[in-house]
């Protein structure tokens, strides 16, 4: 095994992550190579030195502060959701109002347009009136007849009633 290969296997060696065969090969190289020996020593020492890292002590009131923060945030969330529900309702008011105004304006425009259409239709239909007048005369005549039929029909009833009335008068 050459130095380059051994250097690559030094970390797994220190971590105990080498096969028995590779471990023997690396160790036998280190025994005769001062350079790799020094490299392993440095790696091992620096890894061990990590133990000297002293972290500062966390404040005693950490848990109390945390619980306070959690509870105040929770309260805030409840407040915000209530407020946002209220806000959502009030936000809808102008939307609804503008919708109603638009609906009203739309109906006015529609009405105006319909009137215009009707006027133009009437204007368009005006020359036809001469033709329809004949038909209308027929209709009027038919209606007259129909009314007369009604009269005829009612005549029977009226006369019957008259008979009954006369009978009543008699008794």
């Amino acid at each position, binding site marked *: 095994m050459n130095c380059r290969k051994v250097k690559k296997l030094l*970390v*797994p060696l220190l971590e105990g*992550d080498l096969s028995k065969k590779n471990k023997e090969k690396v160790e036998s190289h280190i025994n005769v190579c001062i350079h790799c020996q020094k490299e392993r020593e440095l790696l091992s*020492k*620096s890894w061990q030195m*990590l133990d*000297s890292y002293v*972290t500062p002590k*966390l404040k005693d009131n950490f848990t109390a502060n945390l619980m306070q923060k*959690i509870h105040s945030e929770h309260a805030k969330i409840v407040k915000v959701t209530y407020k946002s529900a209220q806000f959502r309702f009030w936000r809808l008011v102008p939307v609804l109002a503008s919708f109603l105004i638009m609906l009203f304006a739309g109906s006015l425009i529609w009405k105006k347009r319909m009137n215009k259409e009707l006027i133009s239709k009437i204007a368009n239909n005006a020359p036809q009136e001469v033709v329809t007048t004949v038909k209308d005369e027929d209709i009027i005549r038919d209606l007259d007849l129909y009314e007369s039929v009604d009269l005829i029909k009612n005549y029977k009833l009226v006369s019957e009633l008259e008979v009954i009335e006369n009978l009543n008068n008699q008794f």
Partner: protein
Amino acid sequence: MEIFDEDIQLMLRFQNGEEHCFEKLVERHRDRVFNITYRYLGNYQEAEDTAQEIFIKIYNARNTYKPEAKFTTWFYTICKNACLNKLRNKKPATVSIDSTIELQENTVASQIKDSQAQSPLDSMLNNEKSLIVKKAIDSLLPNQKMTVILCRYDHLSYEEIAKVMGCSVKAVKSLLHRAMINLKENLADYFNK
């Protein structure tokens, strides 16, 4: 890791509405979480804030925890994500003199408090060593740093680290390999003195 068996019970009770169980969880893990955030971010205030954020996340995400999932993986994944996010949103080059002074003050104070047996010279030397290691770890790339923290200080297995980091065991070994080489180079001056 058997220490987490009790955490599963606490977590389940917390899920069922026993709020005091969450407080117990915080008490059990506050130092562990803070050590991770401090070693990762290198600044006391940021580390404390991030530790708070992590517990708030655990509090809010209590219903996503399922007892069949390992508590360690779930717990460390939340820690890792919070740290990575914090670092991502952090303005560059804010860790320097301030945090160094702060660390010196904090470590000296805690060491005096913790081990009265140490001589002032020992304390000073240890503090110097601690600062050198801190600098060496600070200069690692984010993923290398997290892998070193989880492996070296929290003693997670390669498989567990892979799950937390969301990568393969092979990738974890590779990260660790590069981190160790970098640490050796960063600490070389100290050993060659």
